């Protein structure tokens, strides 16, 4: 579904991503873990063309999207749930959800997505008229994911959905992701919360200072002693 070849990204003169190649198959949940500043968010931002690649290419379902604009990318079904949620804080929850469907013209599709979003996160329905900025962190994350679902995602890019959340909230959010996986949505999950991310994912890429240092089946990597020591708090 998504294929990234030899991607390099620079911020001014600092190279944030170095020669990264990633492949995501249909229906997979792929985790990308690594320390702060490893370049995880940068890769997601490059896929949705918030920032430009320096070199390398990105293909989505066989189509080169390296030079597409961010709205073209959204229209193809690549929906990005950004770091720090980035909901529209001055607008209502209903308006936030509507904006998620900005490029969707089909009314019945919008209604269907809306039902999907609120059945996944029922608390959103009770608060449709509430200003989104008044929600708690966990609720905002649910809104951010719900908003992404409004755009009929084929591929969801999730940037640290567990950031700042209590363990209970994190569990709820990750349960929701597993539910979405069952419904066939492909996902690329960026996380610092390595253990949980590896546990729910099919495969994992490990990123260190802008390079992929290891990748493979999550179930196997989770048992790897080096990874245990570096990312899972050792044992």
């Amino acid at each position: 579904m998504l294929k990234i070849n030899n991607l390099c990204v620079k911020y001014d003169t600092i190279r944030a991503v170095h020669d990264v190649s990633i492949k995501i198959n249909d229906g997979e949940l792929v985790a990308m873990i690594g320390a702060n500043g490893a370049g995880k968010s940068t890769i997601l931002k490059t896929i949705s063309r918030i920032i430009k690649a320096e070199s390398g290419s990105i293909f989505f379902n066989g189509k080169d999207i390296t030079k597409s604009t961010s709205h073209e990318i959204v229209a193809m079904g690549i929906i990005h749930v950004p770091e720090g949620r980035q909901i529209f804080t001055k607008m209502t929850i209903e308006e936030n959800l509507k904006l998620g469907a900005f490029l969707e013209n089909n009314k019945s599709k919008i209604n269907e997505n809306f039902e999907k979003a609120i059945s996944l996160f029922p608390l959103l329905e009770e608060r449709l008229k509430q200003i989104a900025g008044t929600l708690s962190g966990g609720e905002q994350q649910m809104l951010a994911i719900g908003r992404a679902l409004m755009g009929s995602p084929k591929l969801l890019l999730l940037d640290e959905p567990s950031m700042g959340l209590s363990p209970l909230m994190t569990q709820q959010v990750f349960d929701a992701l597993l539910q979405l996986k069952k419904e066939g949505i492909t996902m690329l999950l960026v996380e610092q919360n390595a253990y949980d991310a590896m546990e729910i994912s099919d495969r994992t890429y490990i990123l260190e200072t802008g390079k992929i240092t290891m990748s493979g089946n999550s179930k196997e990597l989770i048992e790897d002693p080096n990874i245990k020591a570096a990312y899972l708090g050792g044992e």
Partner: protein
Amino acid sequence: MFTFEYFLSQLVNGLKLGSVYAMVAIGYSMVYGILRLINFAHGDIMTVGVYTILVLTTAFGMPLWITVLISIIISVLVGLTAERVAYRPLRDAGEETTLISSLAVSILIQNLLVMIFSPQRVAFHLPEYLSKLYTFGTVRLSTINIITFISVFVILILLSYMIKYTRIGMAMRACSDNMNAAKLMGININTVVVVAFIIGSGLAALSGLMLAGEYKTIDPLMGFVPGLKAFSAAVLGGIGSLSGAVLGGFILGVAEMLFAGLMPTEITPYRDAFVFLLLILVLLIKPNGILGSSDGGRS
């Protein structure tokens, strides 16, 4: 020494001036709300509109309504060119950079107008049917004053409706709230910005006509200070809020005319200073303006 009638006539003069400020302030506010760009060239776009009308009426004898339409089109084109050439390439460079760039555009437009038309002040006359005066006691109103006053509210209502309920309006609010998130929703930021500039520049052309009709003379620098005052009005009312822009416009207009009319003649030349002093005082008490939301800018 001042009669109530005199006060009343100054109040009405304030409302006349205020409705012009309000109309310019709406345009300022549209652009600022989305880009956080203080577009200093906004007042000069107003001047471009006025000169377009002047040339078309005097040189070609066109009827006013056609010249107004053309002046709106020309002003919009100038506004869009400024956006494309001077602001868009700097959009990621920070608010201070685009602010300086807009000052440059302002100076450029002023000097182009000086080159083409000479710095001389020239007379500007509205056709009879617009400048016709109605007298109510000491209060004098012309047709154009009444039209201006009413159009401010019509425009305010139309734009508020657009922003609240239409698709492009939703996109505008989303951009104003969080530009990055708006991009991730698939909103084409450039489209939104272009629409804001079209509305802002079109309103600038209209307000130019009204301002020139009031001053009865025009010159290439005439737009700059009213532009600054309109921006002050928008800040005073609560920047980003259209009702705030209108409210601020009326407050500034009335304050200015009351100051000019009621103060001793030795200090009335300082009316501009007074207006900006008023702005500073209000901002000291309410930093986000009268109708501004408490979190002010982009969150």
